[in-house]
């Protein structure tokens, strides 16, 4: 039978562990919003999921302005890519990658979307390529790029798909 002092210590440890556990749960369940970003000179305000799908699979190669549309994504395994795959195509990441490779195989595209390794690289690419569109964490948006809406929805709107819960 533990002494009273030991029982208090044990209780304190459990309470602290509980607080930490709660903090972790909060960190894991706190939704993170992601946004589509385009070049600051691109006048577009919103795109539809179908437009994203068509851009990825080369059924839409240009913006209304005539600029060549180029999708830039983070590499496989990233949250951004997973959300993008579901938002545009209702596909899991593995199925999305498979569909991309298949689009190369059937001759629709040559190399698929541009792939980079960080949000900074996405912003840099979008900044340098007038027709580029990418997806990054809303917290990473700065004045080098411009955030646009997806199907007219902004982060926080009901039905907004680029949210990691």
């Amino acid at each position, binding site marked *: 039978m533990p002494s009273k002092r030991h029982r208090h210590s044990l209780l304190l440890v459990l309470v602290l562990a509980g607080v930490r556990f709660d903090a972790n749960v909060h960190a894991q369940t706190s939704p993170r919003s992601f946004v589509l970003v385009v070049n600051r000179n691109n006048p577009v305000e919103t795109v*539809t*999921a*179908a437009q994203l*799908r068509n851009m990825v699979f080369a*059924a*839409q*190669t*240009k913006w209304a302005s005539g600029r*060549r549309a180029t999708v830039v994504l983070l*590499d*496989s395994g990233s949250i951004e890519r997973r959300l993008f795959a*579901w938002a*545009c*195509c*209702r*596909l*899991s990441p*593995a*199925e999305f*990658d*498979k569909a*991309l*490779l*298949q689009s*190369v*195989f*059937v*001759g629709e595209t*040559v*190399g*698929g*979307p*541009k*792939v*980079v390794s960080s949000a900074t690289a996405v912003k840099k690419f979008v900044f340098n390529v007038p027709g580029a569109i990418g997806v990054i964490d809303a917290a990473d948006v700065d004045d080098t790029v411009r955030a646009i809406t997806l199907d007219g929805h902004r982060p926080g709107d009901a039905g907004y798909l680029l949210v990691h819960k």
Partner: protein
Amino acid sequence: MRLRSVRFTALHSVIIVVVTTFSLAPPAFAQHDEEHEAAGAAVLNTHVFGNVDLSRQPGEHTSFSLGQLDLFATAQVSERVLFLAETVIEANDQNEYNVDLERLLLTFDINEWLRVGVGRYHTAIGYYNTAYHHGLWFQTAVSRPHVFAFEDDGGVLPVHDVGVTAEGAIPSGRAGLRWVAQTGNGHGPAGAEPVQTAVDADRGKSFNVALTSRPHPLPGFQTGVSFYRDRFNVLPGVSETEEIVAAHAVWIRSPFEWLSEVISMAHRDAGGTRESAPAWYVQGAYQIGRLRPYLRYESLRHLDGLIGSAARVSGPSAGLRLELGPSAAIKGQYDHERREGSRQSRVTGQVAFAF
């Protein structure tokens, strides 16, 4: 028991070699070679697809077989010109290797409404033939539906052709309409190589037109129709007209897959005698984690041996696909077919990879 143990050990060895090899492979979508692009040079993107099978059916020895080794390359030659080549190395029933140039296309990407390609291509008959080519890793099932079997596997459709292929979008809003038009050499005469890659044995050219819809509100859904016609010499001086009408509805949306197609093939000789045969299949699959069980039922009533060797075939197939990673999968499939009145079963295992 010992023999069975040896077989499975061998299969495991193959799997281990394949998985080990491709787990070291670079990701399928690496960054473009920026230095080459900056220099204005075309970058050749290469992919390799392949499969190894193990099959068992009554009356034949259980056999390992090397499937197709598919060497695939594309390049953006210029902003509007795309190059695509697909070469397949495969063994035939006599254990001899064949090398086939399955596709060679130079495509001019004029705009969203018009892309024109010249070379050897897969005819846009139905859905399966253009969605799934020679890399078996892409398709859920072990095998293609009988009606879409390749010509050198006894297939009944002209799945390849040499000529001009054009396609593009149709301004149609949320209907997502697209068109395809193709004209080529068409069929060769009976007994000859079915795909006339270098010389057309007759004056007639084949043509094929297709219309598809990918409605924007339904991601992954596609429906379409196609019509193919060719007039060719079955024998010297004896011509026939072949007409193929196809319709399809497919829906591939995580986690399910649904494919359904119906094809009607008709031949008409110079005397006006017309013979037609239908074919159809439905296939459903559902992804559960890394597993994808699937079912297929197909039916093919072939014409009188004019093209290909398949006869009346129908029956169900059931299979399971296990994803080993992003670029390899193991599949197992059980087929129970009624072929010309007799029933037969076949079990096939397959390791398919892509990188």
